[in-house]
């Protein structure tokens, strides 16, 4: 499984990539692999306020519908509209082109609740 070194991870297999107070978020390679071909991404509304661990949005694969949980609290400021017509971007490029949303985070301290790449690798190994 592919894991990005500088990203932070949740136990539900989301990732967050921080740039100042903006976190770009998505689902991990492990998650996209488990879900199978993604056929639909329900993007969150811009301006939506989420808390860490709350449902950010929904994704559907050929097999099932699943929720994506927000790795951090904050406000959705940008969404990846390319996913509307090509949700398979998540399968092909889960950490880059398949990002889901950008969140303006409200509490930096929450980062300590997330796993580092090494922690996540260990978590997957268990």
């Amino acid at each position, binding site marked *: 499984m592919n894991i990005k070194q500088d990203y932070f991870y949740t136990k539900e297999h989301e990732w967050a990539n921080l740039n100042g107070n903006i976190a770009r978020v998505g689902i991990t390679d492990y998650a996209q692999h488990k879900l*199978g*071909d993604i*056929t*639909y991404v*329900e993007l969150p509304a811009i301006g939506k306020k989420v808390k860490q661990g709350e449902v950010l949005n929904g994704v*559907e694969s*050929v*097999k099932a*519908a699943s929720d994506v949980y927000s790795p951090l609290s904050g406000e959705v400021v940008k969404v990846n509209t390319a996913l509307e017509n090509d*949700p*398979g971007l998540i*399968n092909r490029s889960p950490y880059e082109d398949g990002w889901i949303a950008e969140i303006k985070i409200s509490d930096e301290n929450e980062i300590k609740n997330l796993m580092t790449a090494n922690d996540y690798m260990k978590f997957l190994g268990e």
Partner: protein
Amino acid sequence: MEIKKTPLYDYHIKLNAVMVEFAGFFMPVHYGSILEETKHTRQKISIFDIFHMGEFYIKENPEKSSLDYAITVPVVKMKNGKCKYGFLLNENGTIIDDLIVYRISDDEWMIVVNASNEKIDEETLKKRLSNSAYFENRSNKIMKIDVQGPLSREIIKKIAGEKINNLKYYTFDKFDFMGGRYIISRTGYTGELGYEIYIDAEKSEELWKKLLSFNDVKPAGLGARDILRLEMGYPLYGDELTCETTPLDAGFQKFLDFEKDFAGKKALLNHKQKYLLCGFIVNGRKTIRHNGKVFINEKEIGYVTSGVFSPHLNCAIGMAYVLKEFALENTEIFLGKEKPEISGKIIKPPFLKNTSLKS
């Protein structure tokens, strides 16, 4: 109960298949990508391990046929070498199983049934068949491999010979290959040109390997099979067909022969139909699955039996039982898990026209 393995189990594992339990068997759901396997089947050739389905052999004097009453298929009237789709019904007209009958000779038939219903099918048939009829369940001895796709004829020809050119849609013959004489029918569950091969279980791996050695042939799993059948509007027992629905509710009058007598006929003649099975197409990609609801405005008018994302139509599609008075083509509907969420319209399947099915 122990979950059974098909003769190709180890082979699927080697091919990195994701396995699921289905009807008491470990079955491959996909070998990497359900959507890729779906598309490949409509472009080239896919092969499917369908060992789990049941095969019954019945021998009896056609002049005193008890099988003719036991199922809806006119087994005495149909010609040798023909396949016919039909039903095993309860006396009240509801569906125990859907099946395909092969007339092998004047006094011999093969019936192919769903894995999940094999036991009850066998019990029901044994009860209905006369003492002079011979019944054998050969499901464990027969491997069924489906070879489906627009290029499938060329591959089958290489295995079974030129005679395959004579096989018309819904017919079968016996062919000499791999040291035996085996049934190949021109049937399938994908809507493409395709064949179903019935071979000794111990020859499964040899045939599977041989098929995979040809260019353009790839294995496909149950995931692709489900999308392919839904794109054609083919029903699946457990979803569209159940022991609470009749063939009339499913809109399958054309598969019933009311000129002969059969178990369930009387009930069907008196059946007050409430629902009709319809296809629906969604405006967008969001899938509404089994047990979703159908609405017109806020009024609930039906329930979803199956739903998938169709990679060929690039939107979600499905089947639903809709109150008969609303079951009209192009009717605008809403769908949702609990309340109206997304819009769509009623469509008469098949969703895909102009496939290679009859080429």
